[in-house]
């Protein structure tokens, strides 16, 4: 489904564990990187490759919040709102993003560029408020810094 290179990468990953099942989380990461999200065929591929049932895979996908069960925007914004970020303005930041993008958490903008998610503590409390945009942390945010950042993105 994903080609020889992909399968070789997966083989290498599986080889790092004493049992194939242990490679589930890293394999799901590879699938999400290749496909953008964990679609049903991705889950079935992982199940067959690792010798577990598709229900088992789905159980993991729905347990770990970072695996996407549907496509997100090209720029997926995950705003931390746990206590320390809350104390430094995360709620205002989130509200600003909702208004600026015109979406709520769990939605994607019509042009497919942005999606929004509220997340728990990202381990960046010293640089609050902050969010994670796809893989990258953006810290010590101000509303104008956020505007500048987002307006520059394709």
């Amino acid at each position: 489904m994903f080609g020889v290179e992909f399968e070789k990468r997966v083989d290498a990953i599986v080889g790092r564990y004493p049992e194939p099942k242990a490679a589930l989380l890293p394999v799901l990461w590879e699938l999400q990187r290749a496909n953008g999200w964990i679609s049903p065929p991705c889950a079935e591929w992982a199940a067959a490759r690792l010798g577990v049932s598709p229900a088992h895979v789905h159980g993991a996908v729905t347990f770990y919040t970072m695996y996407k069960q549907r496509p997100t925007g090209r720029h997926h914004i995950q705003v931390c709102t746990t206590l320390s970020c809350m104390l430094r303005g995360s709620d205002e930041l989130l509200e600003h993003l909702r208004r600026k993008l015109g979406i709520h958490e769990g939605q994607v903008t019509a042009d497919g560029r942005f999606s929004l998610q509220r997340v728990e503590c990202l381990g960046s409390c010293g640089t609050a408020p902050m969010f994670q945009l796809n893989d990258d942390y953006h810290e010590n945010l101000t509303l104008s810094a956020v505007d500048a950042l987002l307006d520059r993105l394709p």
Partner: protein
Amino acid sequence: MPKLTLDGREIDVQPGATILQAALSRGHEIPHFCWHPGLSIAGNCRICLVEVEKAPKLQIACQTQVQDGMVVRTASPRVEAARNAVMEFLLINHPLDCPICDQAGECRLQDNAVAHGTGISRYTEPKLALAKAVDIGEHVLLDQERCIQCSRCIRFCDEITGTSELAFFRRGERTVIGIWPGRRLDNPYSGNVVDICPVGALTLKEFRFQTRVWYLENTPSICAGCARGCNVLIATGRQRELMTTQGQQDDRIKRVVPRVNIEVNGHWMCDEGRLSFERLAVAPRLRQAESGGSAADYDEVVREAARALAAAAQAGRAGLLAGPRATCETLYAWRRLGSALGSLRGAVHAIERGADDELLLRRDKGANSRGAAWVLAPPTGEAGLLDAAARGEIDVLVVLGDALDPHDTPALPDAVRARVETLIYVGPFRDAAAEAARLRLPAAAWSEEDGSYVSFEDRVQLLRRARLAGGAARPGWRIAVDLALAAGVELPAWTQAADVLAAAAQDVRELDGLTEERIGLLGAPGGLAATAGA
């Protein structure tokens, strides 16, 4: 042996036993949901928390191994407070479905709520709304709201059937039991998850809304579906509820569930066996004697049959084709009748389907094929007998119809029907063999007579009658006694199945020494090795 002081009483405990196992083995109930004796320990429901001296926190009884000298309290205020707490937590999102839930009356949540709940809910927030009556398999419905996330069903599908269809999805209080879309809960043992579900989250479609469990009477018996001989409980309507508005008796079988027998079927049974009782209703029942296609007086048909059979038996031209679900008692009585009349060539019909699996299923669908081999010790197989009949060597052929399923009664080839002068059918159904027979005598079906079966492992087990045969139908061994009387030959004055078994035990070496008392509810080993020296 480690000593445990349980609520002030010192008891000896099996090494390695948990507090819960030790308590339950003494009939001392500690409430539990997620623990099941046939599955691994989960420890998630927390209702079994007990006080263990020297431990600062309460400990779960299901997982804590007894150490010598351990002192445990299961009824202290601290324990009761914990139980109240767990019950309250379980009930906050649980739907008030009792009035429409099949589990009512055998629901652990109900029972423990009454025993260990406070009776008043302090929860005033909205309850989680989840999917209800979800069709997840051929026999099973799922109600996600009722589920208490004990994981018994998941562990069953992981550990017993190895099929892993069920899993937890999502996290925290949003956790639900689910199945992968497009897959079904379709392993051959799916019905067991309904038995083990402590609440009404998993229910059996075939039982849905049929009746309330407090209207059921349970009869311990043996499944007739295959040679494994799973121990079961046959649930029928109770006596006082038997009369419907038309004044008809309604003691139909409502469900069959497994009965625990560690030596035979553990805690489980297969779906085919569980639902085999439905086959009793697929063909019209034979409840009256018939001659030449019309109803006739039972005694008259017996006389006519006895005449024909006696003549043929004296000439060595009588045959008996028995099904492998006939009881040992029926088969022995016919063997005695045959010898009393002269000779009776016997053969046992074989029913084979599918394959043996690693769990319970057997290819041999004859629940008593072993017993039939011991009792009849037939010199030839079925083919041999039918060939002889087709060659014209058999004047009178008696066919014992299958006790469970009309489709499993042996089919008689045209050649046999053409050459045999008198075909006598003794069985419960109007099946193909019955239609071909001129003389028909109504026999009890499975669940309608006492008797014994021998499993493929040589275990002798007792069937108990759960309901009336109805009309003139009676056990096959009684019909043999009636025929003997009509033919003027001597058979002992047997009045019940136990009498016949006792007689058989004298005659059949593999049954030597076995009585109903010795066999009991869990069966006893039969066969030459087991009974040697008995």
